[in-house]
Structures are given as C-alpha cells and as structure tokens.
C-alpha cells in the first residue's frame, strides 16, 4: 500500500492572508459583539451573583447580571437553584471531560487517533448544565463535537478513548470514530457528521416521544455554522406546526470552522431565527445559567411547544485537529476568554468564594481525574481491535446477505 498521509495540520497562511480575513492583532476582545453583551460574573467590577445557602443545603443563586434574553416568549427568571453536591459534581464532570479532550488531543498528535477530531474545550458547561436539568429519559442528539455529550449521558472515558482509537471496546464498536458516539440506553442519538442533518432527526425523535405520550423532550443541538442549513428551517416549521417537545440548541461558539458568525449569517441572533419557534439566549460559560435555562426550556417544550436555546459559548481549540484555530482569531482573544469566562474556573470560584469547598479538596479531585483518565487510556490502548467481520456486519439486519468482494470466490455471505 502506498504510504501516504493526509497532513493533519494542513492550514497555515502567509501573513497577508491572515490580516485580510481574521481579526487583526490589534483588535481586542471587547470588539467581539457577543462577548460584550453577556456579562462576566467573575470580574470584580460587575455585580456579583448572590448565593443564599439554605439550612437544608439547597442553594439559591441570583445572577448579578441577567444572563437571559428572549424572543417571542418570557425569559426565565435570573435565578438558579443548586446544592454543594451538585456544584462539586459539575466541577468533577467538567474537569473529567476537559481531561479526556486533552488526552484525545495528545493521542491524535501521536497518530493513535486518525480521522477527524473535534474538541469541546471551553464548552463543557452546556453539557453539565443540561444534564442537571434533564433525565436519561430525555433524548439528546448533536453534531460531531460529541465527546462531552456522550460522557454526560453516562459514557465512560474508556469507551471514549477506545472508540477514538478504533478498538472493539469503543461505544460504537470501533466503527464510528470521534464523530459517531452513540448510547442507546441513555437515549443519546449521536454523533452526526453532516452539518445540520441532526436537526430534523431531533424533531422526529420528539414527535415519537409525543406520540408515545412520554413526558420527555428531545434536545437537538447544532452550531452557528449549521444555523444556515436549510433543513433546520424545515425542522422548525414542522416542530411549530405540530407542537413537538423539542428544544433546538444552537451552540454559538462564534466561529463556523474558520468563518466568524458575522461573516456567515445575516442575523447572528440565533435565538430569533426560528420565526414561529420562540427562543431564549443563555450564557453557556456559566453552568448554573445553563441549568436554569434548560429547566425552564423543558417545561416550555412540554407545555407550550418547541423553542430555540442559543447557548452563547466559546471553543478554545480549533475547529478540528487540522485547524490551529489562529488563522481567523487572535491568541489574545482565546486567552482573554480563558482567563475571564472559563466554565470550570467559574464553578471553582463559586465553591471557594462561598466556602463550600477548599483548594485542597478540589486539587484532590483533579488528581483523581487525571489518574482515572490515564488508566482509561492505558486500558484502551491494550484493548482488542474489532474483528474483520465487523467490516461487513450490520449493513442490513438480515443474515445471509451477500457482500461482494473484488472477486466471486472471496465474496462473503453474512451469517
């Protein structure tokens, strides 16, 4: 076989090209529209979030600055409820997912993971938040940046890493790879490579839930780039027409691969693009804002009909491993958001500020997680490859169908 390699880090530009299309080096973060509108609760000169800790351990959080906006519906109240255990769980889960993404990054660079890898660093709060608001009887479908969604639904780091490497222990038996994680028993429908394809599918899942009279919703997630796909609008129309219990989530991380939202969309207020489908906008760098937003959205979807939730977030890494993520934005922009609005640091701040935990306890958790991920990685690397018959297995359900090889003698009948 010829030795060829599709270079994973293919994109680099002459300085002239970079200056023409990306934010220039002198442009600062405050010029980016979306960041300006949504407040940062961690900065000292903004109104702080007020924590009221009840005697029974229940915590009520009043957001210092309202993180919600709405379109054709009432916005949720800027209040969230949580508890110490929940905040620790958020911290633990998000740190775990961040660690797994870092491990996947290293594995890709070491060429153990091939294909395409899209990392979720920076966006973990969305998954942590909606998992707290929903149950495993609610359904989730998303696009290809799905590692955290899978783990949020109950997947383990071992299954994630095995699937990335392509071992049989992976969640899709090694046949899907990074973009196709599924979990049937947790109602996670993946994992879709074609941009926008998952949105009408999500509407269909919601229709089935309504038909089966289940008190559950389906979350159909897509990005700011996918918001311009035609099939989304077909799905919005059907959902509004038939009052489907679907929550359309637009994860607006400001860039559709290399194209900023302003350059691709005539209307960048993605929560308003549903027309007959109302929408809310949440600050998805703050996990409590996400949790309260989704609790409200689930109630709305079950009683009043579909809605769009625009989760305003940011990704630190490039679109995928072949994109360094710097041709269209500056390092300063990424660093500023990391310093100011990182979701994991936000939860840490909440825990420490309100004396719910100590530095040592959190460091312990981080150490445990690193150990857990390292062990999962080791175990995954030692796992078995899928059997060769998996190549032609599960194309259809019937057994005895004929898969044609290059010649008649080697063609196989599937048993």
């Amino acid at each position, binding site marked *: *076989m*010829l030795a*060829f*390699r*599709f*270079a994973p880090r*293919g*994109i680099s*530009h002459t300085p*002239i*090209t970079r200056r*023409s*299309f*990306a934010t220039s080096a002198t442009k600062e973060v405050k010029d980016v529209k979306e960041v300006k509108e949504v407040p940062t609760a961690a900065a000292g000169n903004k109104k702080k979030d007020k924590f009221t800790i009840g005697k029974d351990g229940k915590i009520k959080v009043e957001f210092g600055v309202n993180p919600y906006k709405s379109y054709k519906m009432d916005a949720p109240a800027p209040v969230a409820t949580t508890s110490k255990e929940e905040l620790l769980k958020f911290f633990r889960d998000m740190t775990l997912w961040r660690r797994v993404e870092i491990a996947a990054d290293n594995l890709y660079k070491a060429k153990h993971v*091939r*294909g*395409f890898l899209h990392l979720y660093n920076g966006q973990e709060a969305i998954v942590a938040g909606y998992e707290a608001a929903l149950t495993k009887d609610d359904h989730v479908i998303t696009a290809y940046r799905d590692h955290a969604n899978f783990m949020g639904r109950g997947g383990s780091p071992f299954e994630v890493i095995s699937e990335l490497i*392509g071992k049989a222990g992976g969640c899709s038996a*090694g*046949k*899907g*790879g990074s*973009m*196709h994680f599924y979990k049937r028993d947790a109602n996670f429908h993946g994992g879709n*490579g*074609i*941009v*926008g394809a998952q949105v009408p599918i999500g509407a269909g899942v919601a229709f089935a839930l309504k038909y089966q009279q289940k008190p559950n919703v389906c979350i159909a997630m897509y990005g700011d*780039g*996918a918001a*311009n*796909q*035609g*099939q989304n609008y077909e799905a919005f129309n059907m959902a509004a027409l038939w009052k489907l219990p679907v929550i359309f989530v637009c994860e607006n991380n400001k860039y*559709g*691969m*290399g*194209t900023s939202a302003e*350059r*691709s*969309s005539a209307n960048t207020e993605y929560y308003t693009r549903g027309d007959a489908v109302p929408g809310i906008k949440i600050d998805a760098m703050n996990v409590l804002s996400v949790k309260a937003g989704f609790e409200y959205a689930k109630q709305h979807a079950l009683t009043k009909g579909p809605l769009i939730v625009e989760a305003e977030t940011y990704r630190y890494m490039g679109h995928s491993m072949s994109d360094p993520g710097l*041709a*269209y934005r500056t390092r300063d922009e990424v660093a500023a958001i990391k310093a100011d609005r990182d979701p994991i640091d936000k939860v840490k701040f909440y825990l420490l500020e309100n004396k719910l935990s100590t530095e040592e306890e959190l460091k312990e958790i981080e150490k445990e997680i690193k150990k857990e991920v390292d062990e999962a990685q080791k175990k995954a690397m030692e796992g078995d*490859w*899928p059997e*060769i018959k*998996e*190549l*032609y297995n599960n*194309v259809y359900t019937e057994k005895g169908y004929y*898969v*044609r*090889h*290059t*010649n008649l003698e080697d063609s196989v009948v599937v048993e």
Partner: protein
Amino acid sequence: MENNKVRWLKMKWEQIYWEEQPKKMNLFTAINDAMDIALTTNPKAVLFGEDVAFGGVFRCATGLREKHGSSRVFNTPLCEQGIAGFAIGMAAQGATPIAEIQFADYIFPAFDQIVNEAAKYRYRSGNEFNVAGLTFRAPYGAVGHGGHYHSQSPEAYFCHTPGLKVVVPRSPVQAKGLLLASIRDPNPVIFLEPKWLYRSSIEQVPVEDYEIELGKAEVIKNGEDVTIVGWGAQLLVLEQAITMAEEKLGITCELIDLKTLLPLDIDTIIKSVKKTGKLLISHEAPKTGGLAGEIAAQIQEKAFLHLEAPIARVCGYDTPFPLIFERFYFPDALKNFEAIQKLVEYDFSK
C-alpha cells in the same frame, strides 16, 4: 467564450513547444493556477464555496481573492443546497460560476439542485435557457483515515444523470487542462479532485493557458495482454499492481485513464479490449451500482466475442466507507494484482 490563447493538447504534451518554462506544481497549485487563468480570461467567472476566501481547506483558492477581488471570490454560508441553487441561477444568466463543495461527501444536500435543475435546464426549456458556464468542484476519495464522511466517491450517482458531465483528473498537468476545459465547456460539469493527491502528486506543469479535451480517455501505458481501466487516484494503485504483474506473470498491461466519466469514451476501451481480450476495471466506490458495472455491460455488448475471460471489477465493498477497516475495504494493489492473475490464468476450456 474567447479562447484564442488556448492550445489544444492533441498530442502528448511533451511534444508541444511551450514558450515559457514549465513550473513544478502539485495538484492544488495546478488547480489554483487553472482557476486563476479562468478568472483572468473570463470576466464573468466567479468562485465561491465554504471557506474559499482564505484559500480553502485544501488551499486550492489561495491568493485568488486578493487578485480578483472579493466580489468574484467569496465565502458562502454553510448550505450546499443553497450554494448549488445559487450557482445554477447565476449560470442561467450567463455567468461562469465555479461552485466549490468542501468535500464530495457533502454534495448530497445539493443533489436535488444538480440532478433536477442543472442537468435538465437546457432540455426542459427547449434550449431557451441553459447553465453552460456552471462547474462544481469537489474533493473526493479515500485518504487513509477519512472515515465515512470524508472519503466517499459519488461519481456513480452523477454518471446516472444525463445532462451532466463528470471529470476526474489524475495529476497536476491533467487537472489544470481538464479544469480549464470543464469551466469553458458549455455544459454543467462536476469536477471531482482526488484529495489524496493534493500535496503528493507533483509535476512540471506548463504555465500557459491550455485545455485537455473532455470526453476522451487516454492510454497512458501500452500493453498486449490485459486492459486496465481506472481514473483519478486509483491509477497510482493500478500502476503498482501492473508493476507486480509484469514482473511476476511476464505479461504487459495496457492502462487507460478515463478522465471523463460521463460522457464515457467507450471506443478507446473497446479498441484496447479487442487487442488484449481481458479487462479489469477498478474504483474505490462500492461495487454494486458503481461505474465499473456500466463499463462492463457496454464492453460485453460491443466486444463480446473478443473477451477471453470474464471482466474483472476490483472495487470497494458494498458497505459504508469504514474508518478503522479502510485498509481492508480499499481496492489496493494486491487485490488488483490477484485479479490480473486470475484474468491471465483463466481457462475458458474448463
């Protein structure tokens, strides 16, 4: 369209006298050069697609926006059906749009527009309207780790649609000439570029404006014993198989590059099969419904009595393009060598 600077490649290109020194280029540079020439010579030509403004994910459009302006080279949002429909509308008004689909795997939302609108435009309007200037470009084919949605070869779906032309180059020299011919051809053309070869295929490419004729296959290697047909990146695999076969079986093989898949140049293949009596066709796309079946059917119709063995088709399995199993799925040089061996050793007296 004016093409008084074009030199038609009627003979092997080495024999033509080029005024300027040819330049070493790889596939994406050659395609970039072709589009540059197209945009320079035709003021109605425009290039658009996802992320082409900074040069495109495969750098085929590098520098074009700076040179020709942002109103002629621009990004579209993420909407293939929109891109296709938009391109068809522009072409119907006489423009020469070059619409880039980022990966051939993403061409399916645009399938309706291409098959139902572009292919039938001239026919259904009784030649009142046409989309002559329309060209779609898409990278296709296996790349070693592309998986389900970055490796597909959709040529068979489009070869099944009268009204379209489907063109696949094998190297930088061919790509530049074929792309210029496709852009200037007064019919809608789907130009599929083998993404595996974007960087790795390097040749001395003439810097002038030249075209290579569409609708004509080329015999790139002469032989007496077996005819082998392929296109695009698969030809490199076939060359390896031929080297093995010639060494070990003591035969000579004739290799044909189809170049244009639709309309199919069956006469070149018939001429070759009448000489050799044995035919092998190889492509990456799944076997059932693949183009090899069409070629085999036409050959057995027209050269039945010249065949000395059943026609061999070495193609991908009838499964979705796998990720981890790509090495097993791919019709590689060994599979092709075995097929050649079977052809040569076939004893029709048994």
